């Protein structure tokens, strides 16, 4: 079965999730859809599996155009998707989950379904007890169940969204073996959606790379890891000469910090940040940068190690305590974390302006807001609700809200979703702050941004950290290897 996507486009409000993407998938091969968070790979696969419909463009199966009204419809056409979080019903048994979603009468034929399940599981070497409850299973076993369910529905194209997150190494190799045999022996098409380069190199025959909603390139595997990194992150432009920065005293001292969240553990990070220094955090999404920056902001308590600001121990301090000490944090999701939909610019200012008085001086709030939006070039009025501003203006406004004279400014993807001009403006503002002695720590998925602005780079891979002291002589190959985890191991 040959599947082709032709000129697929999809927008959500102002966000162009997919722009004119055309890809083709042949039987018997394993494909990777690569891309950073927000590159549009999930949207594309949801369109392909009938979960969403495209704004424009067509899906062709063996040359015939098809439209899917629902995922069930797509499965009937032979395309099934395995979601990142298994879509099952935990209070039910394995067998009951297997039956649910299968076509059948009001009274399902339990005995036949049990036979199918057992024989399929045997064929692929999965050990699944039909009578166990699903909430007792591991994520890997739930995946196996879901794969068997899709196979029993005669799916010929299997899409897997980040299937290796949260499963053990043995389960991963078992999964990969099954996927390989499905492609080689049964002629199925396997599509792996991932940003994990190692998985892609291990499993796939070909990779399609998406960036910012567009298709940017195709590689046949094996290929140098640097090529894939370059496609995913963009070319590293030669770094421009910068006036040598002078750094002040150390402001934040991170000593041997270990963190753990439900996704991964970050091991032994030590870093001394000096006043006026810019530190870029690089790495594939979910490698530990977010956890690290949140622990610096007081939102995640380290399991071990200390975080000090000058001589103040902030290891276990609350977010508000850390903020009082002069550390500000600007998260990535502007309207989810940071700004308040439905409130005006002036109300935001009134909310964040320090002051002892229990009342709000609205006159002064209006004046300050008017001044600040002029200084920061925000296109909006003091009484505009924040959600009516464009992304770039929201980000500029978020910067305008930050108190002056910060010791450390922590930023997550400060220019994500912004056009070139807005991004440049944001960095102008940030560099001004740095000139006045504020240390800046930022996460970015754009390697050129990291190389251009950082004085030092911290590369994260699977919770391990490598410090790059001189970004000036950083090249694609080396960074690619660091990000892909060749040296960190």
């Amino acid at each position: 079965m040959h599947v082709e996507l032709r000129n697929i486009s999809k927008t959500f409000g102002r966000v162009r999730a997919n722009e004119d993407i055309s890809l083709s998938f042949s039987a018997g091969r394993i494909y990777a859809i690569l891309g950073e968070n927000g590159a549009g790979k999930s949207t594309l696969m949801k369109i392909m599996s009938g979960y969403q419909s495209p704004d424009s463009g067509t899906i062709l199966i063996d040359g015939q155009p098809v439209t899917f009204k629902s995922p069930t419809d797509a499965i009937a056409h032979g395309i099934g998707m395995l979601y990142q979080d298994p879509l099952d019903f935990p209070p039910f048994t394995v067998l009951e989950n297997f039956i649910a979603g299968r076509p059948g009468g009001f009274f399902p034929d339990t005995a036949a379904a049990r036979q199918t399940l057992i024989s399929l599981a045997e064929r692929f070497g999965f050990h699944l007890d039909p009578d166990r409850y699903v909430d007792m299973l591991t994520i890997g076993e739930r995946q196996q169940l879901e794969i068997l369910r899709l196979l029993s529905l005669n799916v010929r194209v299997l899409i897997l969204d980040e299937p290796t997150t949260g499963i053990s190494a043995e389960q991963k190799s078992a999964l990969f073996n099954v996927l390989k045999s499905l492609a080689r022996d049964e002629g199925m098409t396997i599509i792996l959606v991932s940003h994990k380069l190692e998985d892609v190199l291990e499993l796939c025959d070909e990779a399609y790379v998406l960036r910012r909603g567009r298709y940017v390139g195709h590689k046949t595997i094996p290929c140098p890891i640097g090529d894939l990194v370059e496609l995913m992150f963009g070319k590293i432009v030669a770094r421009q000469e910068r006036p040598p920065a002078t750094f002040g005293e150390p402001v934040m001292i991170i000593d041997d910090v270990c963190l753990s969240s439900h996704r991964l553990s970050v091991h032994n990070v030590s870093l001394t940040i000096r006043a006026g220094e810019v530190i870029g955090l690089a790495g594939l999404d979910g490698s530990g940068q977010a956890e690290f920056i949140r622990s610096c902001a007081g939102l995640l308590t380290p399991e071990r190690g200390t975080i000090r600001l000058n001589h103040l121990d902030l290891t276990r301090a609350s977010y508000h305590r850390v903020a009082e000490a002069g550390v500000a944090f600007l998260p990535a999701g502007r309207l989810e974390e940071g700004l308040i939909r439905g409130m005006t610019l002036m109300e935001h200012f009134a909310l964040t302006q320090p002051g002892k008085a229990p009342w709000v001086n609205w006159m002064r709030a209006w004046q300050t807001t008017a001044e600040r939006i002029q200084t920061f070039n925000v296109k909006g009025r003091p009484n505009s609700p924040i959600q009516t501003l464009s992304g770039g203006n929201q980000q500029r406004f978020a910067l305008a809200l930050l108190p002056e004279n910060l010791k450390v400014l922590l930023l997550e993807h400060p220019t994500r979703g912004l056009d070139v001009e807005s991004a440049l403006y944001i960095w102008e503002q940030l560099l001004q702050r740095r000139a006045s002695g504020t240390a800046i720590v930022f996460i970015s998925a754009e390697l050129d941004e990291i190389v251009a602005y950082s004085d030092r780079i911290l590369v994260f891979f699977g919770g391990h950290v490598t410090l790059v002291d001189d970004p000036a002589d950083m090249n694609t190959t080396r960074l690619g290897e660091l990000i892909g985890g060749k040296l960190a191991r």
Partner: protein
Amino acid sequence: MTSIPEERTYPPRPPAMVRPSRSLLWRWVVDLIPTLITPFIGIAAALGLVVLILEWQGADPRLAWQFLYDGTLATAAERADLMSYWMPLAITAFGLVLTYNAGLWNIGVEGQIIAGAIGATWAARLFAEGEGWRAQITPLGHGWVLLLCFVFAAGAGGLWALLVALLKTRGGVNEIFGGVALNFIIQTFNMYLVSNGGPWQPVGSRATETAAFPEVARLSSYGGFRHLSLTPIYITTAAFILLVLIMYVSRWGLQLRAMGKNLRSAFLLGVHTERNVLMAMMLCGMMAGLAGSFRVLGPYVTRAKLTANPSGGIGFLAILVVLLAAMSALLTPFVSFAFAMLSKGGQKIESGFQWSDPPINLDRSLVRVLQSGIVLMVVLAFGVRNRYFPPRSAQAAVDEDEEVART
């Protein structure tokens, strides 16, 4: 296939929708008209529903309207009664304006009213009835006893609400579930106090209520109106002024509104969200507790005793009031007045039709149908409007300057 874009360039956007530049005032008016009309569509729909029910029962809707008027506004005595009914409803709604703006769905307000009623009764028994060791204390004057009753009522209501808030912030129990559970508990506790030989039921009595409070623990009536007392009016007015100051002037009110719109962002912008949850809930509970004390100490509703149902459901009614007032502090007094009128007039509608010729049996709960119907229909009308005719403020609008630049 497409080539690899090297830079962050986007193709030029399609020409922006041509929107003639209208004056700001005009836009504002255009936005305002549906906002003003929408609630009336909802109210009309609910009234239509009730008229249909009345016609179906063979009752003349105009007569019902007449009874409603007779029972509430026709005479000075009825107006005084209406006032006494309105005050506890209003002060409860004021408290709810605080929590609802902060995104806290304080369903437990009904229980907080009962807690206030129990608190006031307890104070009356402690300081006015003088049994046992309490007889040794110098008898307190009228003012002092009442003050203590109010303090105990506000304290009990506030603590009962604080419990809901602590369950939420410390125990991870949603305030809706915590509130519903605590409502049941306090209702049962109240029943235990006044029924089946409970500790507060007078010996030998079979009525599920306490004995009437002594004179020093009663709100005195005003002028010639047997049922009207001025104290609740003063307290409720003070609560309203406090509410307006909080919501429109204070920094705290701004913080509460921010929390209601986005708790996470408010926290990240420096708002002490947990502390504010506790404080808003407690203040709401205190106001509800005072409402409970108006109900038991006043000469109108229960005639100075704690009964089996001291709140009479005004907590739930206040929830409807605040929803209909769109959580606005300034609209709440009017909406609560309208609802007090409907509730009180409903009794007259029931008795009026009973004695009409021929007698028609209408239950007073018909008014509840109307009240809930109005809220439902108005909320529905706004929902429909936001879905199909979204106001400008609800759209992710394009920057005007960008628009201008492009045209």
